[in-house]
């Protein structure tokens, strides 16, 4: 009961934070998304994570900080950051052969319209290579590059990763 009361009182305010969330201190952030989530109460509190940023990674006009420059992802990191932040969805869309995260990855890699179907098909066929068991984002980036390179039509895009 007390827990619920506390949760309720806390969660009525908009933008209250569950500050540990979102605390993305390094260049990688995908794995962090699943941290600190268990049970009803955290879920209730988490609703309003809105409230906090709790980190300086995305502060604007703070100069260079690891993977970002003045709050935006540096271009060399773009693809890795995207894969890291969308791991589960990307693996899902790849295995289905279409979806928003797959479209976005194709855009990031610069795949032209006429090569999109090939891209989707190759991704679907190689999802187990790109996301091997217990893979890190680095593994996936390297594997993606490798998969592109070994396809005749898509090899031209390997360099952009």
């Amino acid at each position: 009961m007390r827990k619920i009361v506390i949760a309720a009182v806390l969660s009525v305010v908009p933008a209250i934070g569950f500050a540990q969330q979102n605390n993305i201190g390094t260049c990688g952030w995908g794995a962090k998304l699943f941290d600190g989530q268990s049970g009803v109460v955290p879920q209730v509190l988490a609703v309003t994570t809105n409230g906090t940023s709790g980190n300086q990674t995305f502060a604007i006009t703070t100069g260079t900080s690891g993977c970002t420059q003045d709050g935006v992802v540096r271009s060399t990191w773009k693809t890795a950051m995207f894969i890291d932040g969308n791991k589960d969805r990307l693996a899902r869309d790849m295995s289905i052969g279409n979806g928003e995260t797959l479209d976005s990855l194709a855009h990031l890699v610069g795949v032209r319209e006429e090569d999109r179907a090939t891209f989707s098909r190759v991704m679907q066929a190689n999802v187990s290579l790109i996301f091997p068991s217990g893979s890190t984002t680095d593994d996936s980036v390297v594997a993606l590059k490798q998969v592109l390179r070994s396809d005749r039509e898509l090899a031209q895009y390997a360099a952009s990763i």
Partner: protein
Amino acid sequence: MPFRPRPWRAIVCLLCLLAPCVAEAAPYLDDLIGRSRELRLSERREWHRLMHYTDNWVTPGVHSLADARRFFLAADGKTNPQSELEATLAAFFSDIQETDKEQNPQCAFISRYSWLDRQLGFDPARLPRQPCKRFHEWRDTLNPQGVTLIFPAASLNNPSSMYGHTLLRIDAKDQDEKTRLLAYAVNYAANTDETNGIAFAINGLFGGYPGMFSMMPYYLKVREYNDMENRDVWEYELNLTPGAVDVVLMHVWELGPIYFDYYFFDENCSYYLLELLEVARPDLDLTRDFRWWAIPSDTVREVVKQKGLVRKTVYRPSNATVIHHRLELMSPEEQALVSSLSRGRASASDPGFAGLSPPAQARVLEVSHDYLNYLRATGRSPVGDPAELARTLLLERSRIGASAGDPPVPVPEVRPDQGHGTSRIGFGGGRRDGANFVELRARPTYHDLMDPDAGYVRGAQIEFFDFAVRDYSGSVGARVEEVTPLSIVSISPRNEFFQPLSWQIDIGWARRRLASGAEPLVFGVHGGPGLAWTVPDTLRSKTMVYVFLESTLQANTLLENNYALGIGPSVGALIDFTDRWRAEPYAREQSFFAGDTDTAWSVGLRQRYTLDRDWALRLDLSRERQEKQSWNTVLLSLHHYF
């Protein structure tokens, strides 16, 4: 404008020490200041929006909502628009070179520079233009084409999320609806590492945290809302000119290192996004109604209300919404397979699965995977290594060439901004315990179980400061009937796939019968957990039944022991006979065991009939028993939402 000593002279002198060349600036600066006075620029609305000036509460004059000293170039800039404008002009003559840590004032205050340049037409020969390389690189990365207001709607089991949050998305020129994930979100939030919820709540209420703007890829926000919190997201594409979009960006840049004291209820995320839009469109007055109380969903309504400001809306269903939708499309056999596959209790070699058509196999695997992720996100992983199970399901899926071919989740007919107004006033009359009465009821915000559902979450209630006064015939006379500062109810149906806990809490004062027959206003806290189901178990079911275990703590010096503590069950149902007509039969009992030994109970039937979006009729019937006295109440009332 009262005469003021020229603060810019001090600044210029200061700058002289740093950079000898600015000494020559003085004549042109005098000229600029002279013209700015002639044009009365510091009185312009644009300047006031750029500086976030707002009228003082009591005394005449203004103050800026910005709380960071570095936002002001004049010592009295927070309260003096004129001296701030002159100091700003003076600072533009600085020849500080841009580094990774420092910017020239022309770049650091680039939205002011841009506006003043347009008003005064700076002569680059006499006021050299700084390249502002960092700003331009940043802007090029964003490649802006438009701005979209993002509103994550309420999640199913969380009435408090109805309150909502808003952010902006900067849409790039080379993106389309399929690649919007790559856009950047501009978020305004309290910046703190506080993990103690209570401390956070208190500090937040009283402005104890700095509120700051930050940017992040939109996909992080989509993952957070859609996948982690299971909230549908609404996107409102704004109709801004390229010039206005640029102003938004320049101002976000200018506010980057600036903080504002963050207040949950008024100076919050949504309020500052409105401020930002006002900078881009000074002709709009969006913030006027939100000076004291800015509820995110209300601020969305305000934006939608502006003629032509919203170009298009996009609905982005959450993971849970998609799962609900796709489960509904399945046969019972497919659902059973999802249930066992997602929990690792069956595999793709299962004969039941192998016998399905390829599209059905694709559907079952996709929903199994999504459901497994839902379980992970809500902390209920069914297996030790859910990532590996998810991977196994996806690999199976990747071997199927066919597509499931399911239709997308239908866009709700009523958006959150199109539901009833959040304030409500009601007038009615009735009879209670032999005395006739008239009742006036008012609620500043937000939604209760019996209010029309369109645009809201069914079974969810959150109300602030609901109060009722009644005037009884006979000896009772006029009195406050109840005051409820806070009331939240979450009735979330359970089924094979979703097992949320329902819960409720309310805090306030209500009339309570004493053994003597007197009825003082007694303070009480009441609430507890519960379970709910829909009958039958489908998304569009008309009936939801619930049970709760409720407890009550009452405190009043008129109570025998100054307090009373009780516990007991309640049962009820929400039944929609039609879209307009809802009934709620209920029964509850509270056995007091500390401070009092009374057994109180009530049974009743509440009904609502929706007349139109902002009008509803209610009929409440009840029988109550407290301190061995029983009475009936009937109340017919008309409610207006605004």
